[in-house]
């Protein structure tokens, strides 16, 4: 990282030694154990891991919904203590939109609440964000009349319009059908090409990680520990059938599942 000193943009989010635990009615679960990573400005940073490796919990902690047991999470050098509009979240579930507001009102709402922009600016930004995700025709429609993909577009537009420091996406396309998911991945990349925002993206799909991400943090299974950080900025839809892409996919696969096999052998 340090070798190419002039090209590396500044660190935006710094996670160091973070251990996360949460309580269920019967257990104290350790979700991640001493995780370190840092996200630079303009990164499409992916957290990839098998289900139950604490990647969503990690994202929630960055969102400020959960304090770490040890370690620290800093954004622009400031410790994260509570949720805030500088870290807008896009969730996997569709009910993140407010059913009592139209598409336009939903996109407007966070800007109105936070009073980040002037009124005229707020309205203009909302219109622009809706146009960017191609929903202008559905501006005054309530969320229950939209398809899953459209709801997700609204959620993304809502988050982007506020222009947060970092966009946190928690498996945003996991609940979509395969065709819609692919379209959404392409659209997200197209948006990134325009705006170069910073995004922290959680997924359990290796393919999605390579396609969408520029850097991939691979976590080990339960509890989540850092296994690798890889660079995938050169791999996207245009070269998804090249040997290079396949090699990366295989490498991640081995990182994730090779270890599990080794564990099994050690146990027997």
């Amino acid at each position, binding site marked *: 990282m340090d070798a190419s000193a002039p090209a590396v943009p500044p660190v935006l989010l710094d996670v160091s030694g973070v251990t996360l635990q949460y309580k269920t009615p019967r257990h104290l679960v350790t979700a991640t154990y001493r995780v370190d990573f840092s996200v630079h400005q303009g990164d499409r940073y992916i957290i990839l891991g098998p289900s139950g490796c604490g990647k969503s919990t990690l994202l929630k902690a960055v969102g400020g919904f959960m304090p770490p047991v040890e370690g620290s999470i800093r954004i622009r050098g400031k410790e994260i203590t509570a*949720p805030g509009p500088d*870290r807008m979240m896009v969730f996997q*579930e569709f009910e993140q939109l407010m059913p009592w507001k139209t598409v336009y009102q939903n996109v407007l709402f966070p800007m109105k609440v936070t009073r980040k922009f002037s009124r005229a600016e707020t309205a203009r930004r909302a219109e622009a964000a809706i146009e960017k995700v191609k929903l202008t025709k559905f501006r005054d429609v309530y*969320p229950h009349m939209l398809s899953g993909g459209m709801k997700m577009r609204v959620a993304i537009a809502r988050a982007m319009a506020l222009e947060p420091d970092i966009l946190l996406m928690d498996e945003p396309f996991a609940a979509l059908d395969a065709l819609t998911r692919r379209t959404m991945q392409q659209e997200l990349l197209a948006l990134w090409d325009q705006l170069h925002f910073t995004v922290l993206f959680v997924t359990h799909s290796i393919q999605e990680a390579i396609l969408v991400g520029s850097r991939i943090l691979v976590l080990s299974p339960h509890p989540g520990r850092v296994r690798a950080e890889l660079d995938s900025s050169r791999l996207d839809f245009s070269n998804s059938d090249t040997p290079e892409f396949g090699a990366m996919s295989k490498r991640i696969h081995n990182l994730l599942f090779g270890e599990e096999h080794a564990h099994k052998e050690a146990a027997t």
Partner: protein
Amino acid sequence: MNAHPDIKQRPEFEQEPSDASAIGDVERPLSFSERIIQNETAQRLAILAVLLIVWELYARWLNNALLFPTFSETVRVFLHDIGNGVLIDRTFTSLRTLALGYGLGLALAALFTTFAVASGVGTRILSTFTAMFNPLPAIALLPLALIWFGLGTPSLVFVIVHSVLWAVALNTLSGFRSVPETLRMSGRNIGLKGARYVGLILMPAAFPSILAGLKIGWAFAWRTLVAAELVFGVSSRSGGIGWYIFEARNDLDTATVFSGLLTVILIGLFVESVIFRALETRTVNLWGMQR
């Protein structure tokens, strides 16, 4: 693939979509009769009409005005008492007390539930209170109310508040509890806290339950009021609709009793199918939270 043996029996094919214009317009407006049959109001009116015809026929056949006056006689008395202002006066007396009790009950319920969502202890306190007091009939508290507040409006308001408060609080609290976690988080994400969080996220998200609570509370209040007025008898100057019914019974004027009951029913229907219905179509139906 090409070597697949079935390909001869089941050849692959591609074709243009067939011409669908034969079916006419893909979307066409429903005809008048189709809409009438689907219309909820029309259906309700039809049910009502059948009921009234049965009433009229039965009463005529029975021919005993003391036990069961006819519909036409009831309507005559009803219109007569509206004409001379008695019924309107009685109704307004009742509605004024009702509005006071209902409003106060709602305000208290809002206060209680806001405390309840603020902390776990608050939730426990409210759920214990509702478990204790919700099953307690408001009428059973009337003797106590009479001792505390004497004859008159304050006693009535007290029992109405009791009947409204717990029903509304219970529904609102359960509504708040069933707000999806993702929606809560997206509210907190943009920094909403405290009263703004309750008002901008929880209240609208729980609105179907709150509305159900409002309806139940309204019905309880109206019931309690009429019953209390019947027990009460007169409160010196002006009695309400319950008193109107009670008076007529003393005079064995059954048609007037019926006209009083008709008034209660009509007001109930109006509030349910005009006020609450309008509220529903503008909110939960529009938002797709209720069908």
